[in-house]
């Protein structure tokens, strides 16, 4: 039987009248990657801040690494590592000094600390830049240093809050590989992201967070089965054509301002031909047609009642 490194039940948090987390439940088994997927403002960062002891919850029960978050925050802190969305490095210090600071705060013996710092610099490709102030680092280097600092204490549970937001594709791939290596070493990872692709690449389980609620949870494959294969976007020359098309297509979402329709579909050639056939039969003139692969909007469209109102 595997144990849960993170167990959350009925977690709630509001800032004033604004409800950020509206009762969420999560289970993360040891040695797995769990991804919390959601748009900006869905409550991802708030969840990480609560689970990492930075913020107190209004209600709910949380256990991290076997300790009750409210009663034993220090035991939780001793077991976790956090790398946030905004870099948590001292920019006036060099990369090596930042890592040594962490080694000192973890009370590592001098020789062991030095060894671990050198090892992490090597592993994260920072050996050459080790003596330069962190203020001169690129975004990708800062993120790697940040994560390396988190690893100095050998945490059993790691929180990564949008670890690749703002990174170029190459740095993003590097970061993914680092996460895979960590999991191979038995670490449990709680990852937030707004990229479906990232969750798909890394996560054993995904929870979709929308307006403070978990609207779906499962393995990437389970979730994908629940998400239709994207959508077709139709644009029309005038409102009359748009109205005519709406009468023909019952599952479409309309965007009157852009004179466009969004038609969910599985992306297959057959369904596309059927769609075109129906429009053709009724003589509806389509100005432009484009096929879109599944994205977060499709996830939300499929998993919530929310209609996509923007173009």
């Amino acid at each position, binding site marked *: 039987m595997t144990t849960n490194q993170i167990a959350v039940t009925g977690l709630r948090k509001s*800032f004033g009248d604004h409800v950020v987390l509206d009762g969420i439940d999560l289970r993360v088994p040891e040695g797995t990657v769990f991804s919390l997927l959601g748009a900006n403002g869905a409550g991802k960062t708030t969840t990480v801040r609560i689970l*990492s*002891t*930075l*913020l*107190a919850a209004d209600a709910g029960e949380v256990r991290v*690494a*076997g*300790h009750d978050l409210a009663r034993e925050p*220090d*035991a939780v*802190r*001793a*077991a*976790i*590592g*956090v790398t*946030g969305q*905004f*870099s*948590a*490095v*001292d*920019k*006036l*210090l060099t990369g090596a*000094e930042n890592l040594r*600071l962490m080694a*000192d*705060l973890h*009370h590592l013996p001098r020789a062991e600390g030095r060894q671990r710092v050198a090892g992490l610099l090597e592993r994260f490709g920072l050996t050459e830049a080790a003596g330069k*102030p962190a203020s001169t680092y690129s975004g990708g280097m800062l993120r790697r240093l940040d994560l390396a*600092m988190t690893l100095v*204490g050998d945490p059993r549970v790691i929180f990564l809050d949008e670890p690749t937001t703002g990174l170029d594709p190459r740095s993003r791939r590097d970061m993914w590989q680092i996460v895979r290596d960590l999991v191979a070493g038995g670490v449990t990872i709680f990852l937030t992201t707004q990229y479906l692709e990232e969750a798909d690449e890394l996560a054993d389980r995904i929870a979709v967070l929308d307006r403070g609620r978990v609207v779906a949870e499962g393995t990437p494959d389970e979730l994908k089965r629940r998400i239709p294969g994207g959508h077709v976007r139709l644009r029309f020359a005038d409102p009359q054509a748009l109205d005519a098309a709406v009468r023909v297509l019952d599952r479409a979402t309309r965007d009157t301002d852009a004179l466009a329709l969004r038609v969910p579909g599985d992306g297959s050639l057959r369904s596309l031909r059927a769609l075109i056939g129906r429009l053709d039969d009724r003589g509806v003139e389509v100005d432009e047609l484009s096929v879109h692969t599944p994205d977060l909007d499709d996830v939300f469209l499929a998993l919530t009642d929310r209609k996509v109102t923007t173009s």
Partner: protein
Amino acid sequence: MSTAALTFHPLRDSVTMLRRNLKRMLRYPSMTVMLVGMPVVFLLLFVYVLGGTLGAGLASGGGRAEYANYVAPAIILMTVAATVQGTAISIAMDMTEGIVARFRTMHIARVSVLTGHVLGSMIQAAISLAVVIGVALLVGFRPTAGPAGWLGAVGLLAAVTFALVWLAVALGQVSESVETASNLPMPLILLPFLGSGFVPTDSMPAGLRWFAEYQPFTPIIESLRGLLMAEPIGSDGWVALGWCAAVALGGYLWSRRLFNRESR
């Protein structure tokens, strides 16, 4: 999880944080230079530009040399006030960066984040004071204190610095930005002017004189002046230490509360 991992090491963590702050001071020397420069400029202004005239107004009726002795203690206190302005700025810089959020999620003695700054500022104040007292001696400050008087003066300065640093740690945290943090401690630099720092209080109009005689900087300046010039200080010494204790305790409790409040 072994229980050994759950013990705290406030002393060791404070030394680690102190080392971090000293490194930051070395990397960002312009602030230190500016903070020492200000009192030195004021010293030169008051001794060479205003000293001749102000010295004539002293009870003893001296000139520039006499005034140098009168104003030096005020400038020395101003040095402490300038140093703690730097403390507030460093704290605010820390709070706006992510590194403090990282410290908060780590199993460390939390207070060490603040004590590291306090110790660093004490060291910085000692260096600044040595420089400013050195310049004061060069421009004609002639203290007559014996070893006991100097010891007392150093002790008093340490107490004042400790108190004002804790106050500045709170001010730095309460500031939303680095700019606010550099402005909030301004009154500390101005208060010596509204006391017996630069001219005797009996030359002031009634209302101002009342304020000047009771505000905390006046007994501190009087004590320091007495200790350095080997004159009796009466009850001023105890009043000064009382103010220091009150400000230090208030600043510490306020700082601790601010640090433990949760950020959004």
